[in-house]
């Protein structure tokens, strides 16, 4: 903090409450991120399977 050229008064209350609010909103944020990552992984795997399925002989005939 002290290294910043803090020419704007950040407000003590604002900094303290920011930490509290950030901690709370981080919980749903974390899960949303993880779920998003999981869904992307599943979609990638499904796409991979789909490509393989296209290569099966009875499909191509």
């Amino acid at each position: 903090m002290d290294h910043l050229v803090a020419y704007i008064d950040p407000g003590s209350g604002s900094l303290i409450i920011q930490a509290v609010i950030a901690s709370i909103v981080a919980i749903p944020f974390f899960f949303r991120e993880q779920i998003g990552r999981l869904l992307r992984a599943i979609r990638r795997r499904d796409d991979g399977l789909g490509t393989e399925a296209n290569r099966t002989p009875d499909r191509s005939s």
Partner: protein
Amino acid sequence: MPEIGGGSPAQRDPGSFRDPSGFVFTRDGSILRQINESFAAGWDDLAASGLLTTLQERGLLIGHTPAPIEDAALPEQAYAVIRPERIDFVSYPFEWSFGMLRDAALVTLEAQSVAHQAGFVLRDATAYNVQFQRGRPILIDTLSFERGVPGAPWIAYRQFCEHFLAPLALMAHRDIRLGMLQRDFVDGIPLDLAARLLPGRTRWNLGLGAHIHVHARAQARFADRGTEAATASRKTSVSPLRQRALIDSLQRTIRKLDWTPEGTEWADYADHTSYSEDATAVKDGLVRRFLAAAGGNVVWDMGANTGRFSRIAAELGRRVVAWDVDPAATERHYRLIRRDGAEGILPLVLDLANPSPGLGWSGEERRSLEGRANADVVLALALVHHLAIGRNVPLERIAALFARLAPGLVIEFVPKEDPMVRKLLATREDVFPDYTIDGFRAAFGELFEVAEEAPVTGTDRVLFRMTRPITTT
């Protein structure tokens, strides 16, 4: 005065004095930004990081080119000089429509998000650091990025809430006209005031409850604890995940705020004019002809509504600043521009009878409407009766204002026989004996010469093209 070395004298921008790391000035009509010796290490770090380029490529930050150090306005303090891309017209948050302020807020958050990923921080989140260029909001303060301290909270969080979240929440949840509060509170709307003005139900809205209501209470709580609170806040630590979560929460809160224009006075005016389709086509053609003849680069469309005639000016290659008193009309105009990608038009909110004054320190930090006048032509269609009859402004004064704004004028006279004027007069006494075509000619003839005129066929209105004679004083 002979021109030696740096050429003509530098003029420091009266609104650029708060940040010790540099400032904006003009020299020879160019806009330049000096980076001070005190910020030398910070500037080198920033330049080497590639962050500025990333932000510029993503359209979040105004582009710039290096300028010679000899151009510095205060050479003894100078470390570097840059030449930022010029903004066509500097507008202010209280002149933006709801959607414009919202887009400006999202650009600010996006910039902080990108900066954070690169290990930097946006240390200044004032709405005045955003301008509209080619139809889109963009940050203009190249010096507001700095290397972040790991674990430090976002220093501009409070400022962001005061400059963006509070006015947007008030406009969306209480009344769109509260946007004008920004004109009085140039450093952002105090959060305790916003909390008091917002409907009580917004306390149960997760985003607004936290970032405005709880935030305001925390400010009050720690306000009288002075150094003790300052020490506590200095120890406050916010992990990178939490930092991202905070920005994400602000983004979600802003995106959820919505205001759709309806019911305000002129929102669907364009669809309910007194014109027939034929008369509209005639007027379109006349306006196009008169604007083409008037020439120039910049047109100020006063009373632009949703921009029918602004578009005609833009089609002629003019850059247009499209003012309207109604925030609903300006919002619709902005949405149309975003939809069509019309880059040359800037829609803004303004009450011409009470225009934007000079604001901030010495009344110079933010310039008045007339202080920013850059138009070659003022376009005033279906406007004069609103000012003359609706607001009791004598025609001479209307002429004088337009003469101060631009050397060219394309103006429509709307006589008392017109249904719109009859409507204005229906509820009040007619105390306007001089409001006639002859009175209009006399009043405007004092300051302008009529270059051409034509009746708008199918109506009682007359369109004039006028020019302000070059005075030799």
